[in-house]
């Protein structure tokens, strides 16, 4: 269940944003993608998830091994928390819902419509979806947005458990999650040549 990226070049809106990315993500390990806003963290994750095409380079991963968690959580407001989660569980093949609900502290709100959840509770539900996919390689885009300290701890515990079971995670994040097995990759080094290097405010004096 190893994810290997070789010499990957990816583009957003036809413009090359990152070039020459390469890394290997082994089972039981996590890699944190870092870099300033707009560097292309989401683009890399979407490319690896197969949602957009790579301009060049290779992405090698076992078939059906990748689960992607985007900024949007894919939650239907009129369905309850349990219905939302059990839908994804059914799509990916049945998993133990009760355990996943408990792991993200959702048991108490399992029968509430998702429309009544707070932003942090929605995020927890979105992250719980990863656990019911049963896929080994998780791609997470800013997973801790709108999570409080306690929920972040739950999330870190979930990731740690996943890594302990031989899974792997590729996480775009600004904050230090404190994962013991995590390496960090700064994407600034791969910024593509098409990326404007000067800001529009260069040369403007106050």
């Amino acid at each position, binding site marked *: 269940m190893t994810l290997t990226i070789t010499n990957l070049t990816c583009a957003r809106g036809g413009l090359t944003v990152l070039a020459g990315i390469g890394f290997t993500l082994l089972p039981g390990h996590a890699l944190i993608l870092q870099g300033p806003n707009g560097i292309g963290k989401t683009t890399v994750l979407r490319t690896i998830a197969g949602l*957009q095409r790579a301009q060049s380079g290779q992405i090698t991963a076992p078939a059906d091994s990748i689960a992607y968690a985007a900024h949007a959580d894919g939650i239907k407001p009129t369905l309850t928390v349990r219905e939302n989660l059990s*839908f994804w569980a059914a799509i990916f093949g049945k998993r133990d819902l009760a355990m996943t609900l408990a792991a993200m502290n959702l048991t108490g709100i399992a029968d509430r419509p998702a429309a009544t959840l707070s932003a942090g509770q929605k995020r927890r539900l979105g992250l719980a979806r990863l656990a019911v996919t049963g896929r080994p390689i998780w791609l997470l885009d800013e997973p801790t947005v709108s999570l409080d300290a306690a929920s972040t701890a739950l999330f870190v515990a979930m990731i740690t458990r996943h890594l302990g079971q031989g899974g792997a995670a590729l996480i775009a994040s600004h904050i230090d999650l404190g994962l013991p097995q995590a390496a960090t990759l700064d994407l600034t080094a791969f910024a593509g040549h098409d990326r404007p290097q000067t800001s529009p405010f260069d040369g403007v004096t106050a």
Partner: protein
Amino acid sequence: MIALLIRDLRLATRSGGGFGLGLAFFLLMAVLVPLGVGPDPTTLAKIAPGILWVGALLSCLLSLDRLFALDAEDGSLELLATAPIPLEGVVAVKSLAHWAVTGLPLTLAAPALGLLLNLPTAGYPWLIAAFALGTPALSVIGAFGAALTVGLKRGGLLLSLLVLPLYLPTLIFGAEVIRRGTQGLDAATPLLFLAAISLASAALLPFASAAAIRVNLR
């Protein structure tokens, strides 16, 4: 796949899902036409097949722009695209769910509206047959239009412009079935054409729709 069907049906019947909206529009249209055209029974009987089909087309359009747009907005479409079920299957199942909440109720309500429009008695079996065989095409073709416009904000109007011309064959053969049925002529040929349009759309268009969604997600 079945989970997706159940989810879509559940979403449609919950608050804000739009279930019954198309049906209500269809009912209103059939009530308004006699008021506009006048109460002359022979005129009404003559235009009934056309009015019923145009009503079905328009009420089908009402709910189409939500078919993929809502899933795209909340991110479910991206997640479905990376799920183990093929996107073609997703499109087919969502079209089926759309038909179940629009085409099927229209088929069931059509005879009552035929009565309002003074449709001759001989036409009723043909009316039901034409709606049952023709409305699936409306959902499948509509899903293709919805897939093409999924990335667009306010894509609803463009969707109507794209989809209505594609509905022409269904409209022509559908109305022809009922017209021939009411006049006691052989209506089997247009009915077979109608079934062929539905079957061919259902077999081919999910592939085109899935390709359109993939391009729009990129």
